[in-house]
């Protein structure tokens, strides 16, 4: 029979939740310059996108022209969010891997590594939705009556209340989608394509 080595640490599967919560808390603050950039991009992207999204939800159903205007308004925020979300997803996967290597169960590691991906977009989205909820009246007054967004911004007050949390949830979902592994692959491919097009343009001889 094999001689049993006396164990120093035969603690039962203890309640790990306080330690996992402590870890999730420690993962929150941005660590370095790259982290701060990521935080800025995700929060700013979500904050910006929250404006047209909240308006669209509060004013639904809207005419096609209004929706098109809101879509055009949203476009500049998407690449910013996508850039930040890509880094956010990479960091989340690295954190989850490090936690698994510390012998934390895969599911617990995955959940603990979610603190940044939950808090960063939520912070931005909350600021964006709060801003538009507070500012939609003055903004509508500033617009001409025939502007496509005029009617949308004058949606009844009772519709902004449910629209705000819905917009935050949708932006959380969008950030999760953009921070996925597949989105990262598409991001890299898009970056390569843009770089190739840029090189071709640069190589084209210019007229003297």
């Amino acid at each position, binding site marked *: *029979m*094999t*001689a*049993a*080595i*006396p*164990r*120093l*640490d*035969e*603690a*039962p*599967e*203890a*309640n*790990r939740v306080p*330690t996992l919560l402590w*870890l999730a808390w*420690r*993962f929150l*603050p941005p*660590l*370095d310059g790259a982290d701060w950039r990521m935080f800025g991009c995700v929060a700013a992207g979500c904050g910006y996108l929250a404006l047209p999204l909240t308006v669209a939800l509060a004013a639904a159903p809207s005419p096609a022209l209004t929706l098109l205007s809101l879509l055009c308004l949203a476009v500049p925020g998407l690449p910013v969010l996508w850039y930040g979300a890509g880094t956010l997803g990479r960091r989340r996967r*690295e*954190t989850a*891997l*490090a*936690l698994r*290597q*510390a*012998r*934390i*169960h895969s599911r617990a590691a995955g959940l603990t590594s979610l603190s940044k991906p939950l808090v960063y977009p939520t912070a931005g989205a909350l600021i964006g939705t709060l801003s538009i909820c507070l500012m939609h009246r003055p903004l509508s007054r500033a617009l001409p009556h025939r502007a496509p967004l005029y009617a949308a911004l004058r949606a009844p007050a009772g519709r902004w209340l449910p629209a705000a949390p819905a917009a935050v949830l949708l932006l959380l979902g969008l950030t999760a989608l953009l921070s996925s592994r597949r989105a990262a692959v598409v991001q890299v491919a898009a970056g390569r394509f843009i770089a190739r097009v840029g090189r071709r343009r640069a190589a084209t001889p210019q007229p003297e």
Partner: protein
Amino acid sequence: MSLPSDNPVLNAVGLRFPADGSVLRGAHLAVGEHEAVAVLGEAGSGKSVLAAVLCGMLEPAEGTLWANGRPLHALPAEDRQVSFRRQFGVLPQDCRVLPELTIAENVALPLRLAGMGAAKAIERSRIWLERFEIEDYAARRAAGLTKPVLRRAALARALVSDPIVLLADEPLAGLAAHTAEATARILRSVAVSHGTAVVVFTRDPMTAAYFNRIVKLADGRTDARPASPPPSAVPLLAGGGESDARRLPLGPAR
């Protein structure tokens, strides 16, 4: 149920993975208490898969696995994972430490997850930091520290909960010669002082030569016999093994 071998702490017999045996086809490995073994194989010989099977990350299609006298292969999946977590320390090839935590916090993490208080866990981790000669970095965040320091911190983290088996995949890869030698010496000394069965997976014969015994792995088969001999600690290098290890400051002894 009887044990397939005399006195090994870790005994793997006839491991096959996957079912068609394209990676592992009947790999045997028996490692005794106080023994530091190197599994030497070319790239693609199945080292990483064997390491993953031994630490419970992959389930073999065939074969038996015994740890400290317990037949892990016969346990229900959940109990088996708990056994692996408690009894095995693992250092993967791409080892990561959490950059947000200090080195001491990283090393103490398995203890805190096992229910130990923060202060006590940090205190115990310090013993291992000293052992791996990285106590000067204890209070520093892991972000920005050099690879050798992080590798040693990951090794200390794998050993802090006092596992009976340490599985380390290429633990010395990318380290400078003197750092690699010092790390290997520490690993050998851990085997001697703690009775931990140390298994190192490497493709570098020079790295393998640092350890007490070499098991060759080729085409998914090891050159080890299914039933291992009693643990021996005959160093392959002159002046290595126990004599070297005893000169090192010892950690918490069993």
